[in-house]
Structures are given as C-alpha cells and as structure tokens.
C-alpha cells in the first residue's frame, strides 16, 4: 500500500461509524484494522461507539400493542379526513370569534328592535320665534336665490307653457326653513295666471375708468339703501374688464342711482319679466359695468377675477325695454 493511501488517525476516527456499521469496503477495512491495532485511542473510540450502538438496541425491543397499531393503521374515510383538516385549521379561530360574533349580532338585533334613540328624547326645541312679514320673506328669498336658479326656473316655466306668465307662489317663502327648498318650489310652480308679474332690471354701461366707477357705484348703492342680492359681492370682478352688481334697492331711489351712473357714461336699463315678485316698493337690478377698450385707465387692476360664477346669462331675450336717459 502506498504511503498516501494509508489512513491517518484523524481519518480513521471519521470512519469509526462506517466500520462499526460494517459499511467499509475490504481494502479500507483492512487498513482501518491495521491502524486499530496500533492506536489505543482509536480502539477506545470504537469501543465507545459500539457501546452506544448496543444501547440503542433497547429501542428495538419496544413492542407496540396490536390495538395501537390497528387504530393508527385504519385509513380514515376521506370525508372525515377533510373535516378533521378543516376543523384543525379553522376550529380554533371559529371558537375564538364565536362569542364576539354572537355579541355583535345580538347588539344589531337589539338596536333594530328597540330603537334606543326613540327613548333619548331627541325632540326638536324651538329656540326662538321670529315674525316676519310676507315682504321680508320674499326679500330673503330673492337675496338667497342666485341668478342661475331664477333663470333656470324661468326657462322651465316658459318651456311648459310659453303663453302663460307664471308667478312664483307666494307661499314658497312662507318660512325661513323653506329657503333651501325654494329652488325646487320655483321650478314646480303651479300653472296659474299671474296676478302680479315680477320684474328684474338689467343695466349695462361702458366706462373709461372702471375701478373708480366701481367703488363709487358700490358706495352710492349702499347710500341709497341698496342690498346685495345673489351670491357675489357688489362690484364683483366678473372679468378683468367687467364688474357685476346684483342688488335690490328701493324703487324711489332708482332715479338717483341712474343720475349717479350717468355721470360716468350712458346707462341702458331694461326691465324683464321674472317669476319672483319683489316686495312692494323694491326693485332688483343687475348692472354690468365694462371698461372701455379704447381708453387706457390710469390704474390697471392686476388681480384676476375669483372663480365664482354668478350665472349671469344672456340678456338678449328681454321682453320689455326701457331706455333710461342719463
């Protein structure tokens, strides 16, 4: 045997198990036994391994009872296996969640049966009673309704019966609570011949200095007892070169306002039938003031108009026109 094929003690120790189990081939076994004769340490290690292997034979004597083998070897029916598997997987979660589920279900049923909010005494409480005249209500409604709402209602009425002049029912403004629903009520107004016809005045003018006229007009309207109507403020920047005034004013002050406006430019004011009847002695005006494009104003306003839409619509379909002399 060549020297390089000879076993070292280290290698022999690694082969102890194979030798003890009889797994070594003849040539290797021979060289292992040669080394075993020489090395006492290896003999001791082998002895120790063999002792352990012998001790493990204790387990070979174990006898499992026939009953146990029979029980374990019985094939489970397929369904029983599936059920056992499902139960093993889901049963703990199911039993854990069951009390909570029953509790929630009982709660829902109890609430739906007893309706506890009925016993809480959540009744409406009247905080204050404010008496308002019909004119006040009408005025409130006029202010609350935007131009778009009114135009829409008007169109709906004329489409239904273009021949009839329709007036919004007076009871649509019976109480302040009805303000929100007034839009619908206007749209569904009964077809009755109008005893009183409402009017809205529309005006247009072109001026040389828009910002100056705007401020002056706002002040004048307020001085004459005018109040903002619709949703946008007086003198709203509808466009860079356009201002919008939607307001109500005592009818007696109409002339004073026109006189004031005529100082700046010629004013065209036309009246138009409208389903909303204003209170006695009050009128509603929509005035549009534009910058004259041929004149450059002294102060150019750089602020863009806010993204509001007053829903001012076309004015071309006015039925009655009244020219106001400046």
């Amino acid at each position, binding site marked *: 045997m060549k020297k390089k094929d000879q076993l070292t003690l280290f290698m022999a*120790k*690694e082969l*102890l*198990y*194979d030798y003890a189990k009889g*797994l070594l081939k003849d040539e290797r076994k021979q060289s292992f036994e040669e080394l075993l004769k020489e090395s006492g340490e290896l003999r001791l*290690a082998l002895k*120790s*391994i063999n*002792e*352990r*292997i012998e*001790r*493990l034979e*204790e*387990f*070979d*004597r*174990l*006898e*499992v*009872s026939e*009953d*146990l*083998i029979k*029980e*374990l*070897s019985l*094939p*489970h029916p*397929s369904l029983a*296996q599936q059920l*056992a*598997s499902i139960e*093993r997987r889901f049963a703990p979660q199911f039993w854990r969640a069951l009390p909570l589920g029953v509790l929630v279900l009982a709660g829902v049923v109890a609430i739906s049966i007893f309706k506890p909010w009925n016993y809480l005494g959540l009744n409406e409480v009247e905080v204050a009673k404010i008496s308002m005249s019909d004119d006040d209500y009408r005025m409130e409604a006029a202010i609350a309704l935007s131009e778009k709402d009114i135009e829409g209602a008007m169109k709906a009425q004329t489409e239904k019966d273009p021949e009839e002049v329709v007036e919004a029912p007076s009871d649509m403004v019976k109480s302040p609570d009805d303000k929100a629903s007034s839009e619908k009520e206007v749209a569904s107004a009964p077809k009755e011949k109008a005893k009183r016809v409402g009017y809205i005045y529309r005006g247009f003018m072109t001026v040389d200095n828009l910002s100056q006229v705007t401020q002056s007009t706002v002040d004048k309207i307020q001085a004459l007892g005018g109040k903002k109507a619709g949703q946008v403020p007086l003198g709203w920047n509808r466009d860079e070169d356009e201002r919008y005034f939607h307001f109500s004013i005592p009818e007696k002050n109409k002339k004073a306002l026109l006189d004031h406006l005529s100082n700046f430019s010629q004013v065209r004011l036309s009246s138009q039938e409208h389903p909303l009847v204003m209170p006695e002695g009050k009128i509603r005006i929509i005035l549009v003031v534009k910058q004259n494009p041929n004149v450059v104003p002294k102060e150019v306003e750089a602020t863009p108009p806010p993204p509001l839409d007053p829903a001012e619509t076309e004015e071309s379909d006015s039925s009655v026109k009244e020219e106001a002399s400046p």
Partner: protein
Amino acid sequence: MDDSIIRSCVLFFLVTLDDESRVYSCCEAALTAARKLQHRQSQTRLNPLVVKEATQIYREAHRKTFGARRPLLVSNGPSEELLKEIHSLRDKVSQDQFISFVWSEIAKVNQEDLSEGLGLSHGTIQYRSHQVLRLWAEG
C-alpha cells in the same frame, strides 16, 4: 399500511417529544397527513411521506396538541435513563442532526425511505448520525 412505519413513527415521537401522552396524537396526525398527501400526489409509497410529515410536525408544531392526550400502549420500552440521555443529546446537537440520528439509528427506517422523506442523500444522513453518535460517545 406497513406496521413497521407505525412503529418507527411511534419511536420517533417517543424520543423527540418530552411528553409520552402526546405521542399517539402526533403519530395520528402525521399518518393522516401522509395518507392525505399520498392520495393527493397519487404516490404508491407511504413511508417517505410519513417520515416527511412526522418531521414537519416535530419541527413546526411539536408544541401543539393534535387531539386528546392518551397513554401510549407500548411495552418493553427504553429505560428512563436512556431516554434522558437521548433528550440531553437533543439539546447538544443541531435539530437536523438529531432528526437524522433518530430516524436512522432509533426508528431504523429504511435508508431509501429516509433519504426520500428527508430530502437528503444517504451520505448526509450517515454523516449526521455519526456526528451525534460520536458526540454521545465522547460524553
């Protein structure tokens, strides 16, 4: 079903588990799972699947109780002293080494079934068993 694999399975859990009353339920769980797997995979040999499932139960769920505890109906079992030694050995070696050792040296499962069930080569199983045995012999 081959009785020897049931016996091997009982031995495997008897050595690996601390509580003897759980051996039956773990064996039952392993055998049931192996049968199910055999049916699903249309395999003809059950023994490797029993090795695989029993090992899985020992590795991952040996602390869970599969069914009721019941006394193990065996006789001529190993001495308590030997079981204690094996249990102390379990704490000294890696889990993989111990599993190979128990299946190979104690449960005496066929090398082929063992190799297939554990997904290891014969050499690896023998080497691991040797390591445990040597460590035990060295004390």
